[in-house]
């Protein structure tokens, strides 16, 4: 039973390496629901020929009882054939849909069934771990385990392998494996490969009109309702598309689309405290694929959208009635924001700008007053556009956002819609090294959003804060309810006049990479100390308990087992293929050999003579004599023996096995 359980445990550990993909509890629950019934059947099944079928059936029944799919057969088929790709196309952790969440339990069940059969049919017991190792290999192509996770998994596999080697535990090999795993876990590594890097969710619609091109058209029919929302407080902006690729003609969205998983964290670049907000959105005229969203969506319920991670864009291929959106919102005060640096590593922030007209480059230098790239420089650029350009929202509205139209806007007409303002801002910011992107969406000043609320605006990447929306048109009415928009407004008001602008202080240099950051040395030290102390206490305690239990039973076989373990503890290489007389040949000293000879006589009389004589008293007298003799050893030797785990410590040399003739 122990060895079968070890096979199941190894498969479960391999399955748990998918935790980054599915999350801990959703995965652990379905794994337990699948593996426990299968393990019970594997242990107690009396029919060896039917065991694999019965184990698989038990696992499947437990799994289906846990996930309760509407179409059980369809869910299992989808889990076995399609889930692997859907998982790669989704954000992690994935949504716990029945068709997807059965993927890993099916793998674990298959590995367990094959492992148990190998355990019963192949002489080398460690072969039974190969299916679980295959699952480990697959899990590593999804999400590579590192650090403590890899160490724990390696230790768990080593423990399972030790249990499988039934005649003894190769402690030296186990220790070597653990030390190797620890060292490998501490080696700083670069980004790990993942199959997800090459996968993205396909959008059914081959071509989608750019929402930036629709801004002017929407402003032409301003009363058309698009959607309405309800939230605790007004939402300043509702982005629907992030356009961060510009080739001089078109603005296009960058990044891959993925299926929205169970939830998204705030961006990696957000280090300031964050809070969550939520809103209920009901669509009334806004068609697919764009859905009103926020920069850092956390969860979406009521619809299964695609999402562009890091950009926040939500898309739905089918018309949507309503949905609930929760998003992350950084909390930062105006003074911190005003002195913040920009984040040059933000995804898409320093994308292309195409072939720039020469006069525009000169204009960009003038616009920021020669300041180096910082959030203050971004605010200066925003003020430049606000002060020198005019927003038009009625009459004949200018259209276009390529360099010909932007050049005319910047250098000649100096008036345009938010489309030209935002596009010109992003282009000028990038020319000055400020990471920026263009966002298209709607103003949220009213709970019922209409075409007239269509808006395009720029966002700049601020170190530690993420993307901060700016308003070069000066037309967006912001709520006075705190949040990033209000902090931006206060920072804007604190901006001194152009004549008194000064460079902000440089932020402290970040620590150089690769200096051991991320290695939890104190944790490693604690683990080592606790392990050593636990060993020093647990092994002697276990030996005392084991001896007491055997003495209480008092059989001759127990006496032999006691002697065998005592000899192993003092370093005598006793194997399972040795009789008591064989042990006597290796005994340390004639008195010990004499005690073993007496024990051998008792064993022969009791077990093999067929006379019915029970010489257990003589056997245990021999055990006591042997223990007394071993107690005369030097103190260091006795201490070493006291903490040496002797149970099943020696393996009989494995016979080289060939094909049966």
């Amino acid at each position, binding site marked *: 039973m122990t060895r079968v359980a070890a096979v199941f445990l190894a498969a479960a550990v391999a399955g748990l390496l998918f935790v980054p993909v599915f999350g801990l509890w959703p995965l652990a629950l379905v794994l337990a629901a699948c593996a426990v019934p299968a393990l019970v059947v594997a242990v107690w099944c009396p029919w060896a020929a039917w065991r694999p079928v019965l184990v698989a059936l038990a696992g499947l029944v437990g799994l289906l009882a846990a996930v309760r799919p509407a179409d059980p057969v369809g869910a299992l088929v989808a889990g076995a054939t399609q889930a692997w790709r859907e998982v790669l196309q989704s954000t992690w952790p994935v949504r716990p849909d029945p068709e997807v969440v059965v993927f890993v339990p099916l793998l674990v069940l298959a590995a367990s069934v094959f492992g148990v059969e190998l355990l019963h049919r192949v002489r080398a017991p460690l072969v039974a771990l190969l299916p679980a190792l295959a699952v480990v290999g697959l899990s590593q192509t999804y999400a590579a385990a590192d650090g403590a996770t890899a160490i724990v998994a390696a230790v768990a596999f080593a423990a399972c392998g030790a249990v499988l080697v039934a005649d003894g535990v190769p402690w030296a090999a186990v220790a070597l494996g653990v030390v190797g795993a620890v060292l490998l876990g501490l080696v700083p590594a670069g980004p790990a490969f993942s199959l997800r890097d090459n996968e993205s969710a396909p959008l059914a619609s081959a071509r989608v009109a750019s929402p930036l091109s629709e801004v002017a058209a929407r402003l032409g029919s301003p009363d058309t309702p698009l959607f309405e929302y309800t939230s605790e407080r007004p939402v300043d902006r509702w982005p629907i598309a992030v356009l961060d690729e510009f080739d001089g003609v078109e603005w296009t969205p960058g990044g891959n689309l993925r299926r929205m998983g169970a939830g998204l964290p705030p961006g990696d670049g957000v280090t300031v405290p964050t809070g969550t907000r939520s809103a209920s959105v009901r669509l009334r005229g806004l068609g697919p694929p764009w859905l009103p969203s926020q920069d850092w969506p956390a969860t979406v319920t009521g619809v299964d959208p695609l999402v562009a991670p890091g950009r926040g864009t939500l898309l739905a291929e089918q018309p949507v009635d309503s949905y609930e959106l929760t998003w992350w919102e950084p909390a930062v005060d105006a003074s911190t924001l005003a002195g913040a640096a920009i984040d040059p590593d933000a995804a898409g922030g320093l994308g292309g700008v195409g072939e720039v007209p020469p006069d525009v480059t000169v204009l960009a230098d003038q616009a920021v007053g020669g300041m180096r790239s910082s959030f203050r420089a971004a605010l200066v650029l925003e003020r430049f556009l606000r002060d020198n350009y005019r927003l038009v929202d009625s009459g004949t509205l200018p259209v276009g956002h390529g360099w010909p139209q932007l050049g005319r806007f910047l250098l000649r007409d100096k008036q345009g819609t938010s489309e030209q303002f935002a596009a010109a801002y992003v282009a000028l910011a990038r020319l000055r090294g400020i990471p920026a992107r263009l966002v298209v969406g709607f103003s949220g000043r009213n709970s019922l959003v209409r075409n007239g609320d269509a808006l395009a605006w720029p966002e700049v990447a601020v170190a530690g804060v993420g993307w901060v929306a700016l308003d070069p048109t000066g037309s967006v009415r912001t709520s006075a309810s705190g949040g990033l928009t209000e902090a931006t407004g206060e920072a804007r008001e604190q901006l001194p006049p152009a004549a008194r602008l000064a460079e902000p202080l440089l932020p402290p240099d970040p620590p150089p990479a690769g200096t051991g950051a991320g290695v939890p040395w104190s944790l490693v030290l604690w683990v080592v100390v606790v392990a050593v102390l636990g060993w020093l206490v647990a092994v002697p305690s276990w030996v005392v308990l084991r001896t007491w239990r055997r003495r209480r039973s008092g059989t001759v076989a127990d006496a032999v087992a006691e002697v065998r373990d005592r000899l192993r503890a003092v370093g005598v290489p006793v194997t399972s*293929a040795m009789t008591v007389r064989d042990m006597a040949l290796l005994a340390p000293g004639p008195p010990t050999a004499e005690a073993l000879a007496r024990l051998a006589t008792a064993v022969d009389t009791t*077990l093999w003579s067929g006379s019915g004589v029970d010489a257990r008293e003589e056997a245990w007298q021999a055990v006591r004599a042997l223990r007394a003799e071993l107690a005369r050893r030097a103190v260091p030797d006795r201490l070493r023996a006291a903490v040496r785990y002797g149970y099943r410590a020696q393996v009989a040399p494995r016979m080289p096995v060939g094909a049966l003739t």
Partner: protein
Amino acid sequence: MTPPKSTLVYQAIADNVQRVVRGKPDVVRLAVAALLAEGHLLLEDVPGLGKTTLARCVARSVGGSWNRIQFTPDLLPGDVTGVMVYHQNAERFEFHPGGIFANVVLADEINRGTPKTQSALLEVMSERRATVDSVVHEVPRPFLVVATQNPIEMEGTYRLPEAQLDRFLMRLSVGYPDLSSEVLVVMSDCAQVSPDDLSPVVGIPELEAAIAEVRASHIDLAVCEYAVRIAAGTREHSAVRWGASPRGSIALVRAAQAIAATDGRLFVTPDDIKAVAEPVLAHRLVLTPDAELGRRQPASVVAEVLAAVAVPATAG
């Protein structure tokens, strides 16, 4: 406590043999154990180590009849089993028994006989009767063949087939004596102590009773299973092409019963199985060509099997 009769028989024969064969108590013990198990014995070693002397000593120590057959290429099957001779006076054929009709038969240098002659001997060993001109002639009981062969001079010899080697309960090598034993051997020769000086110390009835007692000795099921697992282990070893047959398992248990009797016991222990495993099983193994090229010895294979099979009941 009075030792079993079979133990007394062993001690009598062993003491008698060791008056001549010095310094080889283990070999003598196994040889006498083969006698008590009523199994045939093959002594294989280089010339001059006392194979024939040991065989003659064992034969002389038993009170029954004994014959010596010197195998040569011109030895005929009839010389072994006997022939039908026509008697003119009686005007009928009469059977003249060959050398095989004795309680103890010493087949010296058996590999110098032709395969046909070897086959005639081995058939009698197996069936304990000879068939001449369709007439069956029983050999006397107990019946023990002690054969010798020289493993190094292969010219003009005929190697015993594996199927016929299987008929021998044990194959023993006498081995070189140590220095003190060799001194004793030389001194015995100087004192002109030879196998011919030995007198029978055990009569046929006593020997038959001892054999029956050994056959009736107790063997626990777990020990029997241990013996079978060892025999089966030889079939799974990677260096073995053909392992020990079930006849080998039977021989292992019977030899263990006999070796237990030599220790004063009428029950078998795992130690007894281990003690006789190599002489009983090694000559029954056919190694793979690779193993033979690698100069692997069957004895080392048996040792590996013994080291890998857990002993019963107390394994852990």
